[in-house]
Every structure is written in structure tokens, then in C-alpha cells.
């Protein structure tokens, strides 16, 4: 199959006709470069949205309390709604089947945290053990809070990766005692969170510990829960609506009051984002395919022109004994060779450009613009096919040329 002589013949033709080779190579390299850049930037947009919405479990619901804006059942507006422990119990009992993970939350901002001279301010949250999956966080080292910690009101904390990095540098925080507003807590675990650095600067302590420390009574700040993942988007929405309605009833809030109780259901947002990403994917695919087709047409045109230009040469070759199949083989191998090399060059250039400008694009909602290996492999295959198609039609036409006509072609 590998015919050194034929390749020599092709290399000679290509290298002795540099302008022609460069022009046709440039077309395909440019098409592939555009393809790579578009694909990469599209991927970057996708990565951005995935990252922005990857912060929490997609089936999560957050419920927080505010101030009433409408008078209701003889109560005046402007009343502050305060969640208490009995709300926790209420939700847990009424919606046991619909809820997957559930945790009340006490949150305190800007809490001074010290470890051996290193200090910083963090948000401290008192939560249930269920809170970890709610945040989509993962334990890297040690463990998260346990039910036993909750019962004992243990003075333990699970800290984010960035907290460990801030206060401990390269050392492990495991088992060390953190001074949080003058009280010593033992670090039992370090977690990472796909939501980014901000979400990795939280400190979690058992809910009961936090309530005892920061509240005089059984008040709490908000609830986080994930609904049963078996629910579809519509069921999830009706679940959260029912939950809102019942909580409003319990706290004597007008059902139309939007301020007193706020329920954030991620289901709708997640659905929109997924649709958006899908549309984005389709657009990227269309642009990519369009660019490739334009490239293939470009190279086909050039090949037609090249064959026309070489009519006389091909006629000479035929007069000297070149068979039609050797003419087809020669033209096609030239075409495939140029497309593959130039295409690969364009691809590599595209990957390089994406790498070098990628960091600077974050302000334009483009994160880590890149092409996956399978796209690279796929594009290479498409290129070779393109080269074959681009070469085939002109090559068969070249093979059909009568040598006598070709020789008379001046």
C-alpha cells in the first residue's frame, strides 16, 4: 500500500508548486482554525453556565423568612416572620415523602477565625449532616458533621478547602483546633465544593451547637432541602408551591404576600439552563459543520482549478503511460495529504490560540475554552474524508481528459 515512489512524486509536485500548495492548504487550515475557535468558545460558554449553576444540587429548594407586606387575619403588615424549631419539625413531618435531604440553617457572617496567628473572617453555618449533599459539596479529608455531633452539640467544624489553605497553608487542618470568636472547635473534615472559592470559604458546625452559641432561643435563619429526585420539574414546582402555601398558613401570612416567605426552587432555573445549553450546543454544531462544509467546498474549488491548470501536465503523463487510476490516485493523495496536514496545522493553531487567550475571556462569560479529544479526532477524520471528497471529483475528471485534448491545451 505504501508506495514510496508515489509519495516522492507527490512531494515533488507539492513542493515545486509552493504557491498552489500554500493557497489550498491555507483555505483548509483557516476553516479548521475557525471551527476550532468557534467550538472552543462555545464550549467555554457552556463551561461558564455549567459552573455558575453547578454550585448547588439542581433539585434544591431554599426557604427563607422576611417581613410581611400585606395585613392578614387582623395582623398588620410589616411583621417579621421568624422560623423556629417547630417549623423544622412541621416540614419534616408534612413532606417526608417528597424530601430527600433537609436541613435548617443558622448563618453568621464575618466570624473571626484564628489558627496560631493566622486569622480571617468566614461565614459560619450551623446545619444538619444532610447539608453536605445540598451544597453538592464533597468531603476531601475526614468526615462531615454527624447526627451524634448534633445530639452532643459537639464543638466540631467541617471547613472548606480554601479555609484550610488560608489558615494552614500547605499543612493539614485535620484534628487541629480552630479559635472561632474565642471558642475552640476541632476540625473534623475538609470539603471541596464545585461552586467555587466562595463556597469553599464556609465553616460548618452542628446546627444545635450554632443555635446554642448564636441564638438565645429556638430561632433559626432558613431551610435548605432537596426534593425527591424522582419528581419531574412540574411535580417539583407543585411540591414547592404546596410547601409555601402551608408555611404561609402556619405563620398567618396572606397567600398573595411575596415578601414574608421566600422559596427559591432551582428546578425551573435548572430546566432553563439545560435548555439554554442544549440550544447553544446545537448552534455550535451548526456553525462548526457550516465552517467545515465551507472549507470542503473551498478546497474542492481549488482542486478543480488545480486540475484545470495541470490539464497539460496530466495529458503528458497519460501520453507517457499513466493509467487513469494512477492519475486519480495521484490527485486524491495530494488532496488528502494537503487537507490532513493543513487541517492538523489549523487545529493545533486553534488549540494553541484557545490556550493562550482562554484565561482572559472569563469576563466575557467564557471559561476554559477548549476542544475535547474526541472533537479533535472527529475533525481529523472529517478532514480526511473532506480531502477525499474534494479530490475525488476533480481527479475523476482529470482521469477522463483525453490525452490528445490535454496536449493541445495551451
Amino acid at each position, binding site marked *: 500500500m505504501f508506495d*514510496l*515512489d508515489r509519495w*516522492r*512524486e507527490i512531494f*515533488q*509536485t507539492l513542493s*515545486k*508548486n509552493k504557491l498552489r500548495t500554500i493557497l489550498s492548504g491555507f483555505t483548509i487550515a483557516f476553516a479548521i482554525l475557525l471551527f476550532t475557535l468557534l467550538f472552543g468558545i462555545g464550549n467555554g460558554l457552556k463551561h461558564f453556565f455549567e459552573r455558575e449553576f453547578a454550585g448547588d444540587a439542581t433539585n434544591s429548594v431554599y426557604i427563607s423568612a422576611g417581613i410581611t407586606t400585606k395585613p392578614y387575619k387582623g395582623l398588620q403588615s410589616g411583621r417579621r416572620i421568624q422560623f423556629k424549631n417547630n417549623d423544622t419539625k412541621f416540614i419534616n413531618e408534612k413532606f417526608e415523602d417528597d424530601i430527600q435531604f433537609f436541613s435548617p440553617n443558622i448563618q453568621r457572617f464575618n466570624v473571626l477565625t484564628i489558627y496560631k496567628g493566622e486569622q480571617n473572617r468566614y461565614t459560619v453555618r450551623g446545619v444538619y449532616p444532610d447539608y453536605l449533599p445540598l451544597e453538592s459539596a464533597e468531603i476531601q479529608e475526614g468526615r462531615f458533621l454527624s447526627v451524634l455531633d448534633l445530639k452532643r452539640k459537639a464543638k466540631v467544624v467541617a471547613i472548606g478547602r480554601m479555609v484550610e489553605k488560608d489558615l494552614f497553608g500547605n499543612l493539614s487542618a485535620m484534628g487541629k483546633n480552630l479559635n472561632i470568636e474565642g471558642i475552640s472547635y476541632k476540625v473534623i473534615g475538609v470539603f471541596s465544593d464545585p461552586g467555587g472559592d466562595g463556597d469553599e470559604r464556609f465553616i460548618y458546625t452542628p446546627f444545635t451547637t450554632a443555635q446554642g452559641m448564636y441564638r438565645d432561643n429556638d430561632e433559626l435563619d432558613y431551610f435548605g432541602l432537596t426534593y425527591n429526585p424522582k419528581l419531574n420539574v412540574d411535580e417539583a414546582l407543585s411540591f414547592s408551591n404546596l410547601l409555601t402555601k402551608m408555611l404561609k398558613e402556619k405563620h398567618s401570612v396572606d397567600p398573595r404576600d411575596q415578601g414574608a416567605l421566600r422559596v427559591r426552587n432551582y428546578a425551573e432555573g435548572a430546566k432553563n439552563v439545560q435548555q439554554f445549553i442544549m440550544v447553544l450546543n446545537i448552534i455550535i454544531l451548526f456553525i462548526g459543520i457550516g465552517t467545515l462544509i465551507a472549507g470542503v467546498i473551498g478546497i474542492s474549488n481549488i482542486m478543480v482549478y488545480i486540475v484545470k491548470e495541470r490539464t*497539460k*501536465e496530466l*495529458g*503528458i*503523463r*497519460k*501520453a*507517457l*503511460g*499513466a*493509467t*487513469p*487510476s*494512477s492519475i486519480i490516485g495521484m490527485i486524491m493523495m495530494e488532496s488528502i495529504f494537503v487537507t490532513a496536514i493543513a487541517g492538523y496545522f489549523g487545529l493545533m493553531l486553534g488549540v494553541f490560540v484557545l490556550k493562550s487567550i482562554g484565561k482572559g475571556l472569563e469576563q466575557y462569560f467564557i471559561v476554559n475554552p477548549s476542544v475535547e479529544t474526541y472533537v479533535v479526532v472527529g475533525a481529523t477524520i472529517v478532514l480526511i474524508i473532506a480531502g477525499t471528497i474534494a479530490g475525488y471529483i476533480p481527479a475523476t475528471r482529470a*482521469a477522463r481528459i*483525453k*490525452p*490528445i485534448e490535454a*496536449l493541445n491545451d*495551451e
Partner: protein
Amino acid sequence: MIKLQNLHKSYPMGKDSLHVLKGLDLHIKEGEFVSIMGSSGSGKSTLLNIVGLLDEHDEGTYHLNGQLIEKLDEKKAAILRNRFLGFVFQSFNLITYKNALENVALPLYYKGMNRKERQKIALKYLDKVGLKDRAEHLPSELSGGEKQRVAIARALVTNPKVVLADEPTGALDSSTSHAVMELLKEISREGMTVFVITHEEDIAAGTDRIVRLLDGVITSDEKTNKKVKV
């Protein structure tokens, strides 16, 4: 070597057809040095194209080296051309981006010979036409006479049965023309069949036999007595 009987050829011209060759009978024996004379339009180029397997005849028979030529597909024609025929054209038809040696070696490439042997043989034939020292030159760096000698070397390199020369001196001045004809004569003396097409009397006079064509028919076919003189 070449035997034509009642050969007809016409070209379609719109609805009509142009009858170019009207029943030629011609027999050329091995080793003959023949010229076909005729003005333009007499059908001499058509005859050469048919003999050279570059075109097909419509009627009659054509035997090349004893083999009946009919209904050849392109591949077979290419192989026969490569094996039996060598071409010399008026406009040289060298490949512009190949040097003299590569041009001469090209028919051997299509014969399937390996590179080393190709170059050795090609160099031998370049030497034969006196251009060994120009082997690395591109056609653009050669004079007209040198180009034609390269083309002759290329025609000879496969050691064909017949060399077909279409107005080989048409683009050359008289002294170079003379040198080229001397070269063809020498080849003929070595036993090669040489078939020259020309419209110049003095060129035809240099050959052993002159066939005159007019409007697609042979008007005369005579041997020159030059051979006797020599």
C-alpha cells in the same frame, strides 16, 4: 510494425461530422524512417494521434506490432503507449517543474521501475542525446533544441517499438532542426521505427519514405533515394 487498413475517422461538429481520414491504407515495417507530409487540415495529426493510441479510429483496422487495436479502454491504451510508443511533440511537452533527468525518467516510473534503475537508464539516454551535463536543469533553463533532445531521450527511454514525432522541428530554427533530424536519423539507423509528421519539405526529405496526405487520403507514397546516396 504499423499496419493500417481502410482507416476512417470523423469528428462530430455540432449536427454534422467532419470526415478527417477517408480510408487510409498504410504499412510501415520495422526500422523504417517515415515522414507524413501534408498541409494543415490534411489529417496528418489525426493519423498520428490514432497511431499513437491517443485517439480512436471509427472504421478499419489498425495493427500495432502485430496486435489488433480495437475498443481499447484507457488503461490498456496507457499500458500499450508506455510499452510500445515514444512521443516527441512540437511543443516539447516537458513537465515544467521537473528537471531534465526526471522528465526522461517519468515513463519508467509508469512502467513501475524502481527509482535507482530509472535514474541510471534516464542518465544513459540523456548522455545519448548529448545532454548528460544538463541533467539537473529545468526545462526553462534549456534552449529549444536542448528541450527537444530531452523529449527525444524521454521517448526512447522505455526502448519502444515506434517513436512518433509530431512536427518535432516546428518550434526550432533551421540549424537546430537539422541537429534534431540527425538525431532521429541515428535512432532509425539503430533499428527503431520512426514516424515523423511534418509540413516542411526539407525535413521530409531527410527521411527514408515520404507519405503525402491531402484531405484525408494518401496521394503519394514514395521512398527517397537518399539512402542510396549515403
